[in-house]
């Protein structure tokens, strides 16, 4: 600035220019950006459809998913059985519909477990810094050094095979990723001057953490959470495929594929439909996750 441009008279500060007519919060803006991406919206629609299928399974399924029928063993898809029947004469469509329950539940619950452990840990590490951060980060390094599925298999093995333990195993194995995301977001948010301003105003540290820093880590955690549900659904299907998740006769997509393998040449439909269901749900979560990332962080690309 040159001295010549400095104000030399004592006119009061000029009133501010006019402001835009309509107010939109950052959240509303993000929602609009998300809705502007057709593929992401399509993914969301598919997810909602699968949630409805999972919740209303008893109403939607044409048959009892575990009722065996010796007269209808390994029948190809037909008008009576749209997706055919399996080696015990059970209706594949009904099993796929009920299988949505295990998959959606596992996806959501294990991610809630993972976020429940990882986010507070990341927040604490990012906020406290120093030794707390070092120790937590080393634990995360150690967990991330174990391949995800192998850690989940080991946990599921030691806990015992069933769906609940599979969800715990997947949740615990996923937690370190949430910790990393939350920690990075905390450091990023804490470097903002408005956080310093909040301290300068006399907010106690816990209030600064909860009111000013925590809301900022919501967007990245949301993105990570959506993508992690996709990974968790694949992981649950994998564990069930290996026999470490949902136990028969209760239907799950992974265990259906396990059984299907034995009849690949005689009854390929057994392998096609559960796999397509997994693919569709996982793809949708990935699309929504990518869409959320672009909507919440417009600066990227």
């Amino acid at each position, binding site marked *: 600035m040159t001295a010549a441009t400095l104000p030399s008279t004592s006119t009061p500060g000029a009133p501010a220019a006019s402001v835009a007519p309509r107010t939109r919060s950052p959240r509303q803006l993000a929602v609009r950006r998300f809705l502007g991406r057709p593929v992401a919206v399509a993914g969301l629609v598919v997810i909602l459809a699968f949630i409805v299928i999972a919740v209303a399974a008893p109403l939607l399924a044409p048959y009892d998913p575990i009722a065996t029928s010796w007269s209808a063993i390994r029948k190809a898809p037909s008008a009576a059985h749209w997706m055919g029947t399996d080696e015990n004469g059970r209706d594949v469509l009904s099993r796929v519909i009920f299988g949505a329950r295990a998959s959606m539940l596992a996806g959501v619950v294990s991610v809630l477990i993972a976020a429940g452990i990882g986010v507070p840990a990341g927040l604490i590490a990012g906020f406290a810094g120093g030794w707390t951060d070092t120790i937590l980060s*080393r*634990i995360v*390094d*150690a*967990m*991330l*050094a*174990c*391949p*995800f*599925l*192998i*850690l989940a*298999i*080991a*946990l*599921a*093995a*030691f*806990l*015992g095979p069933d769906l609940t333990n599979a969800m715990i195993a997947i949740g615990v194995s996923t937690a370190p990723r949430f910790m990393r995301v939350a920690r990075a977001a905390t450091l990023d948010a804490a470097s903002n001057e408005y956080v310093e301003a909040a301290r300068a105003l006399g907010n106690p540290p816990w209030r600064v953490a909860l009111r000013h820093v925590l809301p900022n880590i919501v967007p990245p955690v949301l993105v990570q959470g959506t993508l992690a549900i*996709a990974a968790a659904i*694949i992981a649950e*299907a*994998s564990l069930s*495929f*290996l*026999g*470490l998740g949902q136990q028969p006769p209760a239907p799950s997509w992974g265990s259906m*594929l396990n059984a*299907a*393998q034995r009849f*690949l*040449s005689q009854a*390929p439909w057994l*392998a*096609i439909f559960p*796999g397509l269901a*997994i*693919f569709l749900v*996982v*793809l949708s979560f*990935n*699309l929504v996750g*990518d869409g959320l990332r672009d909507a919440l962080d417009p600066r990227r690309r």
Partner: protein
Amino acid sequence: MSGSLGARIGQIIPTLLLVSVLVFGLQQLMPGDPALIMAGEERGDPQVLAQIRAELWLDRSLPEQYVHWMDGVLHGNLGYSWRIRQPVSQLIAQKLPVTLQLAVMAFAIAVLIGVPAGIVAAVYRNRFWDYLANAIGLAGLSTPTFWLGIMLILLVSVQLQWLPPSGYVPLFEDWRQSLATTIMPAFVLGNAIAAILMRHTRSAMLTALDQDYVRTARAKGLREWTVVLRHALRNALIPVVTLGALELGTLLSGAVLTEQVFSIPGFGKMIVDAVFNRDYPVVQGVVLVTAFLYVLLNLIADVLYVVINPRLRGA
């Protein structure tokens, strides 16, 4: 460099120590008494149980057990398989080469697919080929490994009858047969990595293509593809090295499923079998060894990274 390597190793040791605590801690999650499982038929005999407990240090405190176990690990003793009564380290040494062959082939396939796809996507940024590559990549990431394997068996082995659906022939026995039995599993295993590589190559290429020296080359009138291949590709190789190490975990995780689908007697199949046999020392050994491999490979990648990218030296 030697000093920095020392520092890096200094960082790794606490990580590995924590891994060992984690792996040791797994045991504590187990319901029931390990001695009962080991005793098998003789579980009714209190004398046998007491003997097993003493042998496994199960009658000592946890820290004592850990120190005893760690002492073994540091001497290359990962314990004994409860089922086969063989040293775990020996079992792993037998199975690891099979999985490594699979992993190396898978990574090669992933590089062959992912890197060119990433380059094409970057060059045709926001145009048809870019969208196509991204769509295929996303589909690849969303396909469960084991389902892709099953579908390939259905198509290639059942319908077309080109390749055997399962089994494994070691490389040094009959390399043709070995390739025939591993090419399909390797493709399945490489699929997810290819998608990840594609994404990273694309963004590394986009950055490289924006650099001044690339612009200069272009301004000098070099053909676009000459510019890309000669000037930008080098930078695109950097993520390949880093990712190769980072995605080892993905490869090993995928190998568990792939080996199960294709009945390949590798590392992954071993851990699944061990889980069903409640052969816990094997499970622990596998986790420990994979974690160690992961840390080691990342160390190598860090060093390579600096070699490839001299600008980082002394930074």
